[in-house]
C-alpha cells in the first residue's frame, strides 16, 4: 500500500464529497428529530417500570447512551457500501479496480474515510447543538485515559463497520442482489449491536454470545466506554477484541474478494 497515493485519493475524495454538504446538513437534521421521541419513550418506560435502574442504566444514562450511539453509528454505519460493491460486480464496473494499479478495498476505505470526515465536519454544528441541549443527561465528562480509549474504539468501530459491510458486498459474487440480505443483517444488527438499547438489557444467554461477536463494536462498545461502564481490565480486553475483529474482518473481506474474482466474468463489458 502506497500511503501517499491513498492520501491523495483521500484528498480528492474529500473535495468531491464536500460538494454534497447541503445534502449532509439536511440529512443530519432529519436524523436528530427522532431523538425527541426517543427521550419521551424512555421516560415513559422508566416511569412504567417503577424502577430507576434498568440493567445498570439510570434514565439519564440511558438517554446519554442513546445520544452516544449516534456518534458510534456515525463512525460504523456504511450506507451504500455493500450495495455499491454488489452493483460493481453485477454491472461490471468492478473492472476499474482490476485495470488500474489500485486496490479496491484500500480505495474504498480511503474514500469512505473522506466521506465520513466530510459528513462529520458538516454535521458538527447540529450535533454540538443537540449535545449542548442535552448536557444535563451527562453526569460527568470522562477522564483523559477513558476519552483516549473512546476515540480509539470509535476509530476501530469505523474499521469493523467497513470490513463487515464489505464482506456482505462480496456476497454479490455469488448472489445477484444483496439488498435483501443487507436488510436482514441491518435489522438484526439494530438490536444486537446495541443501537436500539444497551445490549445489557438482553437475556444473559444471548449476551454471552453477543460479547464475542463483532456487532457490539459498531454501537454499544464505544458508548459504554464513554459512560464509564467498561473500565480496567475489561476495557483493555474489549479494545483488544475489537482490534482482533478488525484484523479478522479485514482478511475475511480480502479472502472473499480473492475467491469471488475467480468466478467473476466481467459482465456488461
Amino acid at each position, binding site marked *: 500500500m502506497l500511503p501517499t497515493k491513498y492520501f491523495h485519493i483521500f484528498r*480528492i475524495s474529500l473535495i468531491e464529497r464536500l460538494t454534497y454538504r447541503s445534502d449532509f446538513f439536511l440529512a443530519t437534521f432529519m436524523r436528530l428529530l427522532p431523538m425527541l421521541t426517543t427521550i419521551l419513550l424512555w421516560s415513559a418506560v422508566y416511569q412504567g417500570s417503577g424502577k430507576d435502574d434498568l440493567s445498570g442504566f439510570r434514565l439519564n444514562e440511558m438517554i446519554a447512551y442513546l445520544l452516544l450511539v449516534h456518534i458510534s453509528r456515525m463512525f460504523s454505519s456504511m450506507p451504500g457500501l455493500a450495495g455499491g460493491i454488489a452493483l460493481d460486480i453485477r454491472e461490471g464496473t468492478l473492472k476499474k479496480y482490476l485495470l488500474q494499479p489500485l486496490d479496491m478495498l484500500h480505495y474504498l476505505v480511503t474514500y469512505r474515510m473522506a466521506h465520513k470526515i466530510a459528513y462529520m465536519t458538516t454535521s458538527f454544528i447540529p450535533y454540538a447543538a443537540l449535545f449542548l441541549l442535552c448536557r444535563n443527561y451527562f453526569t460527568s465528562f470522562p477522564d483523559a485515559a477513558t476519552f483516549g480509549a473512546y476515540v480509539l474504539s470509535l476509530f476501530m468501530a469505523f474499521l469493523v463497520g467497513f470490513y463487515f459491510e464489505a464482506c456482505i458486498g462480496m456476497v454479490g459474487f455469488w448472489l445477484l442482489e444483496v439488498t435483501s440480505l443487507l436488510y436482514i443483517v441491518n435489522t438484526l444488527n439494530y438490536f444486537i449491536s446495541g443501537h436500539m438499547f444497551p445490549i445489557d438489557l438482553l437475556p444473559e444467554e444471548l449476551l454471552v454470545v453477543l460479547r464475542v461477536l463483532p456487532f457490539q463494536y459498531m454501537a454499544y462498545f464505544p458508548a459504554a466506554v464513554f459512560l464509564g461502564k467498561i473500565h480496567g481490565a475489561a476495557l483493555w480486553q474489549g479494545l483488544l477484541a475489537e482490534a482482533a475483529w478488525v484484523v479478522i474482518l479485514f482478511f475475511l473481506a480480502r479472502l472473499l474478494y480473492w475467491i469471488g474474482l475467480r468466478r467473476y466474468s466481467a459482465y456488461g463489458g
Partner: protein
Amino acid sequence: MARLVAILYGYLLTFTNNRAAPAAANIKFGNIHFNGLASYNHRQPTGERIRMAIVEVRDLAKTYRVVQKKPGLGGALRGLFRREYRQVQAVAGVSFSIEPGEMVAFLGPNGAGKTTTLKMLAGLIYPTAGTARVLGYVPWDRDDSFRRSFSLIMGQKNQLWWDLPAGDSFQLHREIYSLKRQDFDAALGELLEMFGVGSLTRQPVRELSLGERMKMELIAALLHRPRLLLLDEPTIGLDVVAQVTIQKCLREYNASRGVTMLLTSHYMRDVEALCSRVLVITHGKVLYDGPLARLTDQFGTTKMLKLQFAGSATPDDLGQFGEVTARSGPVADLRVDRQRISGALSAILDRHTVVDVSVQDPPLESVIARVFEEGTTKA
C-alpha cells in the same frame, strides 16, 4: 472441499509474494505461432535481431457457466431450489502473437469471443485453459507494474468522475499511477493539444458531448504512457467527424510513441483507417490472421466493374459477363468473377464504346460477412 483448500492455498501464496517479479524468464522470443487459414509471418526472428512479442497467446480458452432459467414463475421457483447450468464456450483456443508497434483489429460477429479475449488479455477474467503473456506478464496476476503499462478503453463505459471536471479525474489518475508531476504535465499538455480539448478540462464531465467525453477518456487512458492499448469499440455511438478525429489521433499516437494497439470495432472505417493486420474470430476460433488487404484477396471472389458507355443507354448483353447490380442511363455496375475479369473487360471494350471504366474490390463489409458465413458453415 479439495477445491476450497486449493483456493485457500493459492490465496496464501499470492498474499505472501504479492509483489513477485514478473515471469520475465518465460517470455517467448520471436517464434510466431499462428493458427487459422493463413499463416502470417511479417517479422521473422533472426539471430541478431530478436524482438520480444508484446502479446503472446497460446490455446487460450474461456468457458462460462451460465444459469439456465425456465420461463415464467414456475421456472423461477424451480430455479430457487435446483439450478441448471449450461457451459458456454466463448473462446475455444486461440493463439496469436503481436509485435511492438503493431495495430491489430479483432473482427467477428457479436458473441464471437472478441471481448472475452480482450478481457483475458487485460487480466479481468481468468481463462479456462491456455496461456498468455502480455508485456511479459501473466495478465490475470494483475501485477501493479503490468497495470501501469497498458490501458483498456471500452467505448460504452466511462471511468471519469461524472460530476467533476475531467481535470480532477486526471489528477486522480496521476495519483493512482504514481506519476511524477513533470511527466504528467508533459503528457497531459501533449494529449490535450493532440485531441484539441484543452479548453474543456474545467467543465464537469456530464456536461461534455459524447465525442468530447470519449476524447477525455482516451486522454485519461494515455496519461501514464501505456505501451499497449486495448480498445473495445472505441468509436461506438460517435458521429463521423468525431470518429475521424479519434482515428487520426490514435494513428498519430501510434506513429510518435510506437504504442501497440489491439482493437475491436464494428465500424469497418475504424479498421481500414487504423489496422494493417486483422484477426477474424468466429465461434471462439481464429479464422484468419493477416493483412487486411489479403483478406479481400482471399475471401473476395468477385470484383466490381463500373462502366460508362457512350450514348444514353447501356448495352443489353452485359448479363453474360457477370451480374448487373446497378444500371442507370449509360452507367452500369457489374459484378464479375475475379478469374474472368480481364476476359470480360476486353470483350466489352471490343464490342462497345466505353467512356469510363474502373475495377474495384467489393466493399469490405461484404467480404467480412462472407468470412463470417464460411466460419459458421465450418463450425
